[in-house]
């Protein structure tokens, strides 16, 4: 009677699988880890059926099962799912600003805008507010980008949610810059009705909150959010 010797993946081969996923456009450690375990399991199963196959042959056989686009679909869908998670964190934070006690700050910002816009200098108020936020968001984008690079250098790992937290706000900043030309449409005539004044004040308040949450609050809470999302983050 013969003993069946199960061939298992070595530590070096695990490292090679990490490199393999990177070569196939999986940049983030969280997804790499899951795919490495999947490939390792499949290679070990392939070895049970075909023990004569080399590691590289078994690895390529396992990879082929992901289809002609390889890991690309998995990566894009993961990004979509993580974007959804980021929006959920954004929303959770936002909800605190429409309930007590932070609601008082939100109302102060809202009535501040409402009062300033009703003085007949709406255009200057909007351009002034816009310029302050734009300069601040550019400064924060550069700062967050630098922080992200330092974190990556320190840990040698890149997490998908971490990248979204530190870079998504910058995208919002760019979006903001692109809207600058449309400001001239807001004349004092247009803001003469109470309903229009309320609407513009509300939009400006929401915009200030969105910028503050994405540029300041979420990056400050990054460690907690990453620990909550990735149990392996502190392993």
């Amino acid at each position: 009677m013969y003993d069946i010797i199960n061939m298992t993946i070595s530590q070096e081969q695990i490292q090679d699988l990490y490199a393999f996923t990177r070569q196939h456009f999986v940049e983030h450690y969280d997804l790499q880890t899951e795919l490495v375990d999947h490939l390792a399991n499949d290679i070990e199963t392939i070895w049970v059926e075909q023990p004569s196959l080399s590691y590289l042959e078994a690895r390529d056989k396992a990879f082929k099962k992901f289809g002609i686009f390889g890991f690309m679909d998995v990566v894009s869908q993961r990004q979509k799912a993580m974007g959804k998670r980021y929006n959920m964190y954004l929303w959770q934070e936002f909800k605190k600003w429409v309930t007590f006690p932070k609601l008082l700050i939100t109302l102060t910002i809202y009535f501040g805008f409402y009062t300033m816009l009703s003085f007949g200098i709406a255009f200057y108020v909007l351009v002034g507010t816009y310029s302050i936020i734009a300069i601040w968001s550019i400064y924060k984008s550069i700062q967050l980008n630098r922080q992200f690079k330092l974190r990556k250098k320190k840990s040698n790992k890149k997490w998908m949610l971490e990248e979204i937290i530190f870079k998504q706000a910058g995208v919002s900043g760019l979006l903001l810059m692109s809207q600058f030309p449309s400001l001239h449409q807001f004349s004092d005539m247009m803001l003469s009705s109470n309903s229009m004044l309320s609407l513009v004040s509300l939009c400006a308040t929401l915009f200030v909150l969105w910028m503050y949450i994405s540029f300041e609050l979420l990056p400050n809470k990054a460690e907690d959010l990453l620990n909550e999302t990735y149990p392996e983050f502190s392993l």
Partner: protein
Amino acid sequence: MKLAHFVIFLDENLLPNSFMHKNIMYIWSMANSKLYKGSLVTIILKLLNESDKMYGYEITQKVKELTKGELKITEGALYPALHKLEAEGLLEVEVKKVDNRLRKYYKLTEKGSKETVSKLHELQEYIKTMQVLVNPKLSLE
């Protein structure tokens, strides 16, 4: 094209035998090669409902084993579905070091358990409807 569109053509009074045979074969091959998105989610939820936690590869192997190889979950479809369910709060994850690597386990949240019941009910209703269309005589009995 959806399975339902083909099944409707299976009434033997409407079509000649040769055509019907071709269509049955087509459905058979589709069922083997392509897993419908809605069913995939239900399968994942059902499997996780029956065990405490599972990892991705284990799910593919379990489906293969239960269906004796008739149904194969493709890797390219499984992970997007798992990540979507996780983002929706239906699944939660746990990571453990197993052998020389990290393994990510999925398990149902409370919301996920409720969703499993509703998805299974939905699928059972769908199968019932399909039975009526495929075999009207049987459904009348």
